[in-house]
């Protein structure tokens, strides 16, 4: 076990993947000489060479399209997209090629590529350096979409994603890059497709992922002071979603709150609320509550705290699910 930041845990995951399988290659802007904007790939080009850790020019469609070509011929490319908002020029390749090749070829062609995307806000940046575009990809059949919240998961899930024969969108919660935690490189943890019950509770199920898991845990602690027992679930996989784990929890608590940074409309929260309403209709004591970013483009850095769900907004969501008075609006459910 070593204590690592989440960013370093990703780096050590990449390092292990590169040494375990010589078909693994890394592609991206500024990942080699510079070691990546967030230093996740620091030292990898020095140790594995320029043929395996490849600095590309600005060309997101090219990077992902090339990864498809490499995957066709037996490689396991890992692409880095520098920031969430720069994935859009590569969107066409991801949605029209990467996601569809396996199905389109009747399962003959595998696309074992991984696309790493630092995402989310909270670092004082702006639009397209702070976005949460995961729902676009979760909406697209054929892609696995995962995200991590701890250094251990960062390490193990990334290695699992790279080893997977499916294309994986790997979303990294960039404001948690500096979070520290113990990492056991040899741990065979929970498979990346499974959600994790991070803390058990009996009154409300609070579902989240990535950057907001830490905030949800804070909410659970704060609510406990009020005598409310929250069960926090870290989804980890956003597509497919491990609905069994979430259902089991909701059947126990009868109340569901979902929180994510991405805007509300058409987001993961909507999908989870709909499916859980379907699956747990007779267990639910109240309508599922979503606490999310607002339906606006990501705002200026100085206003981002008003956009991002925080402890207060999450606790209000919990109150709403419990039919208690909402401190923001004064309404009760």
């Amino acid at each position, binding site marked *: 076990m070593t204590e690592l930041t989440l960013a370093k845990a990703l780096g050590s995951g990449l390092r292990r993947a590169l040494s375990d399988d010589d078909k693994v290659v890394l592609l991206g*802007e*500024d990942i080699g*000489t*510079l*070691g990546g904007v967030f230093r996740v790939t620091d030292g990898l080009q020095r140790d594995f060479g320029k043929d395996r850790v490849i*600095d*590309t*020019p*600005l*060309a*997101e*469609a*090219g990077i992902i399209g090339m990864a498809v070509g490499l995957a066709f011929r037996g490689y396991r490319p890992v692409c880095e997209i520098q920031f969430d*908002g*720069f994935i*859009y*020029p590569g969107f066409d390749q991801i949605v029209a090629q990467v996601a569809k090749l396996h199905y389109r070829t009747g399962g003959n062609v595998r696309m074992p590529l991984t696309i790493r995307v630092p995402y989310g806000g909270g670092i*004082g*940046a*702006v*639009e*397209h*350096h702070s976005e949460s575009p995961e729902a676009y990809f979760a909406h697209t059949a054929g892609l696995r979409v995962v995200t991590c919240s701890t250094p251990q998961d960062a390490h193990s899930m990334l290695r699992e994603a790279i080893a997977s024969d499916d294309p994986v969108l790997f979303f990294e919660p960039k404001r948690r890059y500096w979070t520290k935690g113990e990492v056991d490189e040899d741990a065979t943890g929970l498979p990346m497709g499974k959600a994790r019950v991070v803390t058990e509770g009996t009154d409300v199920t609070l579902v989240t992922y990535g950057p907001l898991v830490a905030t949800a845990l804070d909410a659970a602690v704060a609510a406990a002071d009020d005598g409310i027992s929250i069960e926090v679930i870290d989804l980890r996989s956003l597509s497919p979603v491990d609905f069994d784990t979430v259902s089991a929890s909701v059947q126990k608590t009868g109340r569901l709150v979902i929180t994510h940074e991405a805007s509300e409309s058409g987001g993961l929260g909507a999908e989870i609320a709909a499916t859980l309403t379907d699956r747990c209709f007779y267990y639910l004591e109240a309508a599922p509550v979503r606490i999310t970013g*607002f*339906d*606006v*483009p990501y*705002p*200026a*850095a*100085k*206003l981002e705290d*008003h*956009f991002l769900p925080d402890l207060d907004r999450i606790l209000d969501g919990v109150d709403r699910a419990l039919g208690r008075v909402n401190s923001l609006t004064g309404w009760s459910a």
Partner: protein
Amino acid sequence: MNTQIVADRELAAASLATMWKIRRFEEAVEDLYGRGLMHGTMHLSIGQEAVPTGACLALNKDDYITSTHRGHGHCIAKGADMERMMAELLAKETGYCRGRGGSMHIADTETGNLGANGIVAGGIPIATGAALSAKMRGTKQVAVSFHGDGAMGEGAWHEGVVLAAMWQLPVVFLCENNLYGMSMSSEKAFNLDQLSDRAKGYGIPGVTVDGNDVQAVYDATKEAVDRARAGGGPTFIEAKTYRWRGHSKSDKNLYRTRDEIDEWRGKDPIPHFEALALAAGGLTQADIDAVRDNVRTELRSAVQRANAAPDATADDLLSAVYAR
């Protein structure tokens, strides 16, 4: 033969003032940022001032530009007000975008500035579209799309230039080749002696000029703009220059040498211009001093007034998503 800028008192003073404004504005931004008074992301163009200065001198007020993440110089050269720019960077209600856009998204439609852009190459097809509108409306307006060397790898660059060439639109693609796209050197990224060699493949004229020389940039832009106004279609210009500062705030310059940076600092476009103006008799030392002093005073008051303006508020965080 174009006007010799350095020999013309008015033009020389105006050009020098523009360069100093850009330099001082960005130094102030760097300082405010360093002191934690400014938020967000910012990219400085210190060292590259001659490019927007020379290029915008060849434009009319109603001509268009599109700009980049490194866009303060383009804004200033096209006539933006430093106070409103500073207010924008400080996230104030009085900023160009009411504090919503920040450094990378200033748009000032009154001076024809269709916006800086956080997406590299995002402005290329936009400039092409503005040029198409000029053609459709039968005006003689021209659009200049500033962009970096790194932008030339993006698909949007290619598509924008293809369309402009096909319809012979009045647009100038002006590449500021500052030798790097973040850490990627343009020498490595392009298999070309000069980036303007690429123009041939698109069937448009291309030229490479010294981007630290106002006159050279002006001459090339003037020729391109005249041609565009006359219906002669697009032009590609490569202006070779250098960014002195890091790519953005946290750059440790791992991809270039101290010597290289020093070498280019020796080619500072501002004293170069001043020396030429003195020699040509366009400006006296007193004129030069006056320009510097005036810019300093103007900038100081811009910063003070911007600082005193009301902060952008969260009250209407949800407004302006739709037209109504």
